[in-house]
């Protein structure tokens, strides 16, 4: 019972992070029909740049809250700018090319970012300085830290804000219109290139925030960390129905739960043959099952092109 509740808590935290990253995949897919493989790497850039900024801020004697705020701001701006730049340079020129071209470009961009980061930050695991003291509470037999609560609250606020933006603001309507029919959106006076750039800006900013959460939660960052995280978030987006914003949120949360519970019980279920180090397997089992059984995902539209 204790393990169950503990893994439930861990799963919600992990799922919140997956959901934030999955949103970037799903929004770009919705508007361009492109799987932006470089998206996971922006999470890594967010984590590593925030770590670097945090160290600088602390070194010049700023307090922890101010340093964290500045590092977060800097990382979000950097990733947002990088996302917009990638779209402008690598994807926009291929807008009317066959779909395979931008996909291959995306893989290229991903590799470029990873090795660019390795050159800047080395290939070492970089540790967060031990400045964050988290408080642990006991709840129904499970341990919950204030950091975990902060991550879940923060992610929820961001997602609620995004839903409001998409549902209720003129920009959100312009985004949905561009997604449905970019040509007619242009006829309505909507600058669709700008709408697409803003979509990348938002997705990349969320990726940076997710990267900072990972950094704070696990205490390390690494030039290759975006690869696996990106694949899992992509899985979450497919699970929820790629192209669907609420789907990405749901898929992220579910994937976090499946992975945590799976990791918590895999040893028991397999008589110790497989340990919790097999946790990454669960995401891909989910991906395969979804693709086979329900390719449109949980909340996706059932049109053949999706997924």
């Amino acid at each position, binding site marked *: 019972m204790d393990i169950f509740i503990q893994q439930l808590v861990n799963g919600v935290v992990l799922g919140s992070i997956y959901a934030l990253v999955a949103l970037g995949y799903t929004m770009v897919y919705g508007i361009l029909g492109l799987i932006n493989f470089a998206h996971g790497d922006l999470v890594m850039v967010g984590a590593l740049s925030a770590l670097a900024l945090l160290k600088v801020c602390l070194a010049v004697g700023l307090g922890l809250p101010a340093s964290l705020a500045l590092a977060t701001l800097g990382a979000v701006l950097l990733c947002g700018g990088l996302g917009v730049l990638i779209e402008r340079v690598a994807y926009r020129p291929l807008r009317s090319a066959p779909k395979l071209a931008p996909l291959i470009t995306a893989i290229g961009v991903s590799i470029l970012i990873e090795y660019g980061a390795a050159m800047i930050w080395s290939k070492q695991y970089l540790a967060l300085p031990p400045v964050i003291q988290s408080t642990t509470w006991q709840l129904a037999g499970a341990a919950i830290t204030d950091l975990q609560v902060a991550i879940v609250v923060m992610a929820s606020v961001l997602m609620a804000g995004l839903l409001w933006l998409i549902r209720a603001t003129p920009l959100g309507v312009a985004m*949905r219109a561009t997604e*449905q029919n970019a040509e007619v959106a242009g006829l309505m*006076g909507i600058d669709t290139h700008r709408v697409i750039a803003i979509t990348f800006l938002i997705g990349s900013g969320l990726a940076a925030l997710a990267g900072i959460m990972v950094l704070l939660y696990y205490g390390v960052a690494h030039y290759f960390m975006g690869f696996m995280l990106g694949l899992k978030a992509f899985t979450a987006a497919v699970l929820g129905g790629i192209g669907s914003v609420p789907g990405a949120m749901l898929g992220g949360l579910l994937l976090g739960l499946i992975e945590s519970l799976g990791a918590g019980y895999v040893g028991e279920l397999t008589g110790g043959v497989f340990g919790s180090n097999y946790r990454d397997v669960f995401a891909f089992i989910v991906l395969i099952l979804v693709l086979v059984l329900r390719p449109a995902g949980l909340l996706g539209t059932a049109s053949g092109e999706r997924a």
Partner: protein
Amino acid sequence: MTALPAPDDRAVTDSTAARAVAAPVLEVRDLHVSYGGVAALKGVDLAVSAGARVCVIGANGAGKSSLLRALAGLEPLAGGSICWRGERIDHLPSFERARRGISLVPEGRGVFARLTVQENIRIGGHARRGQSMTTDIDRVYSLMPRLAQRRTQLAGTLSGGEQQMLAIGRAMVAAPELLLLDEPSMGLAPMMVQTIFEVIAGIAQAGVTILLVEQNARLALRSTTWAWVLDGGRVLLSGDSSGLADDPRVRAAYLGD
């Protein structure tokens, strides 16, 4: 560069220059559009004065939609020029042309199926950069109460006629100076066609310049004062609409007499 030599039969139209009145707001010269090397428009000239009601008729594939799409910025030109209120606009993207007052109601309506009626209508306001659009929205709903009753319905669930109303209402909210309409009567029952054309007449009365493209030549000639007949990407004839309606060639080829 790819401008074709002017064909002889253009002389017919050049002399009249297909102008409804002096001081045109829209001037199209030697317009060429082609799709992967296949020419759809082969040197079209037309001029439209402010507040005029004009139409382009022609058979399937004559190039009518290509003409409107080129004017709205959806097709690149293979040659020629488009001047709108004295400014060359042929290199501007479609959204810039919309913000300069050119609105196209496209063939097939192009409503946003997964937006509500209300959202579709409000989106027209993107073209007008800030000015309040509430009076225009009210006007759309009072002219077309069927839309008002369906404000919160998804546009994809509307009937064809209602979608055509929505497409026109959306264009009205953009407060255009030039309204381009591509076959607004397509696929509609006579009653609905009448309603739609009453709305269009109302828009024209408010001073909006109307360029109408129609398969239904009789209806088009009746609703306008000047017309061009397009054939194989070229202007075959032009003249005032009532005159063309009596022209034996037009009667034989397009009015089925």
